[in-house]
């Protein structure tokens, strides 16, 4: 029997993988994908509690999150492309123009 605990463990695992990816990796694309992992970890949590509590609100939130993630992906990829055209790289360490 799959209990909410299982879902939460999966979601936590995914979330930690995502956070470590964002922190540790230098490639922007990878970071981007790690963010998606974080979002999806959240989605799993929402869906699991929605099923457990028999309340559709969680699923509605999840759909909103997917929609926002899609938009974010579009904008983020646009930025990455623009950055790449300027710098010929997608290394995050090169993105330090806002430094003092």
């Amino acid at each position, binding site marked *: 029997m799959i209990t909410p605990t299982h879902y939460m463990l999966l979601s936590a695992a995914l979330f930690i993988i995502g956070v470590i990816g964002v*922190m540790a990796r230098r490639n922007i694309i990878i970071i981007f994908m790690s963010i998606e992992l974080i979002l999806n970890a959240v989605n799993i949590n929402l869906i699991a509690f929605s099923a457990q509590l028999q309340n559709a609100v969680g699923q509605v939130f999840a759909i909103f999150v997917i929609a926002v993630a899609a938009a974010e992906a579009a904008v983020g990829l646009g930025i990455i492309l623009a950055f790449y055209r300027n710098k010929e790289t997608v290394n*995050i360490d090169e*993105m*330090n123009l*806002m*430094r*003092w």
Partner: protein
Amino acid sequence: MRREGYGFEPECRISVRNALGGPSASEKMNYIWLIPLLPGFGAAINGLVGIRSFSRKTAGAVASATMIAALGLALLAFWQLVGLAPAARAFDVTVAEWIPRIPLATHDGIGNFEVNWGFRLDPLSGMMLLVVTGIGTLIHIYATAYMTDEPRGGYARFFCYLNLFCFFMLMLVLGNNFLVMFVGWEGVGLCSYLLIGYWYEKKTAADAGKKAFITNRVGDWGFVLGVFLIYYTFGTLDFRAVQNAAGAMPVETMGFGVLSTICLLLFVGATGKSAQIPLYVWLPDAMEGPTPVSALIHAATMVTAGVYMLGRNAVLFSHAPMVLEIVAIVGVLTALMAASIGLVQYYIKRVLAYSTVSQLGYMFTAMGVGAFSAGAFHLMTHAFFKALLFLGSGSVIHAMAGEQDMRRMGALKKYLPVTFATMMIGTLAIAGIVPLSGFFSKDEILFQAFQHNKAIWAIAVVTAFMTAFYMFRLMSMTFFGGYRGPAWETAGHAAVVTAAHHGVPHPADPHAHGQAHKRDHEVTHGPAEPHGQATDHGHGHDAHGAQTAHAAGVDDAHGGHGHGPWHGPHESPTPMTFPLMVLAVGAIVAGFVGVPVALGGNNAIEHFLEPSFTASHVEGHAEPGAEPAEEHEAAHPSRQLELGLMAFSVLIAVAGIGLAYRFYVTKPEISETLAERWAGAHRLLLNKYYVDELYGATIIAGTFNAARGLWTVDRNVVDGAVNGTGKLTVVSSWFSGLTDRTVVDGLVNLVGWIVQESSHAFRRLQTGLVQNYALLMLFGIFAFVSIYLIVR
């Protein structure tokens, strides 16, 4: 007393009050307010339109016409007044409200202060009314001829002032309360100033005007203080109400009470206006004005205002015997002092000026010994003969082309027959020769003074002797003896004149007069006036001859001459001689209204004026009924005594005249030897006892020094304070700037510096690495969640 009579009914603008009721009689009198208004109207016309556009003839005609109209009304009013019962001779006419009722403190609570434009006709003001309008009219007519040498605008200006003077003088005379009188009082002072300084381009004239005005201010100060005290004491300013209230108060024989204080203050006012010691100094200087002004203002009317005011307040003064004593002493000393100065003066108008001061002293003596009607009587007769003498002297000055120095006259009798005859009448009148007017009034005063105080009488008699002497000296030097004046350019006369000129030595003539002296003559306007120099010779006298054809009739020797040099002394034109003749008649007959009982008369004027000098003549409760009768008895203790005194004073006058004739006509060298022997006294008198110098050294120099002292204080203390404040501000602002630069700017810069320095540490955080930020964020979240979990 009818208190309700002084209330003001708003529903009728002109309320007429008769002291005894009888509306039918009083209604007829309600025009008396027109009498002052007419000359005021004339002044307005001449002032607003005349100066710009009237010809000489129009300006003179307007002024004279308003005066003639006023004279007509005055005669009518007087006639109606005389036609009434003696007790009923008083009218109050309220023309308009002036100061509406306002509460004001008096000594016994809050009173109602209200003043109306009220006029009052009673015997005293009636007499003054006739004097002012009558003599005023004559002098207006005289001045139309006398002033013809003036430029057109100045001529109209002169008549504007002259009319304005009559307006104010009539206001003074007719006012029924102190404040209306004060308006007139100040107004005549103003006109006096304007007219003395009529030739304002001449410095001496302008200075004399200022002197008169400022001296009068001193007196007016006393007068106005007296008025304040009257209101504070009686709660009203109405003459009649004040007199009745004062009549009910006890006579202040013992102490110097409030009535005495009031009277003393009023008398200070009188000394200023009427030129008594110590404020007489302005009157001789006032002779800088044109001669008609001297005659009207400084002899006949304005200067008698002080005497009139004393008479108006006779009840007040008779309740303050100590002040009356002061009045008598001041009066008689002024009379003596002025007469003694008049003995040696050389300028014809100055002699007359001192004579006026002296005669005013007589009037005050009369007032001071309680003989109010005698003083008022002398006021009237004096107005006649002194106006006559001044106008006569004006005629002489006119004939001599402005020469005023009697040392340069002489033998004018044959050239100026009318002037000589009329002036002789005036001289005999002032000397007190029976039966001319001066005799009756002066002897009344002397008699009353004799009964009151022998010392005062003795001084007054000495003064009478001096009066006769200096007046006849004036006549002798002017009309008798040899001609000592400048030569004129007529072949026939030249020889005679040159002989006379060289034959008679100039007595004590310090500066050689030549023809050039004529430049100083009276009608010269000073160097600023170009035509005064250009047409110096004759300066319009010939124009007289051409303009007024009458001149030819009077003065056949000079009637036909044309423009050219001065043709010698000549009689004045008719408009000038006519007033002289009228006044001469007046000087002869004016005394007959006051023939004393001792000479078979009934002293009509005394009985006529009596109601004005007593308190309530309606009910008479304030004044004991027995007193007038008792006084009457006392006034005539001995007919022999009175007759003897009269004979004595006539004798004195004749002695004075004889002595003067001997000194100045038969043996002119006597006067010179006397002047040499008594050189000190002569110089003292010639310099007018050095009073002007004394005043100059004390009061004027004191004022100047005080002003200089104040100026020094102003410069050092006040300016110093201002400058010190400025300096203090500069210093403090320097400190303020310093503080601003160091403290305030320092703080601001310190903040900036701190921020800058601390930024070195903090900018390390700003790595620009996204992952650093994300890591920090993560730590933050951990921290907050941890805190949340722990604290919960």
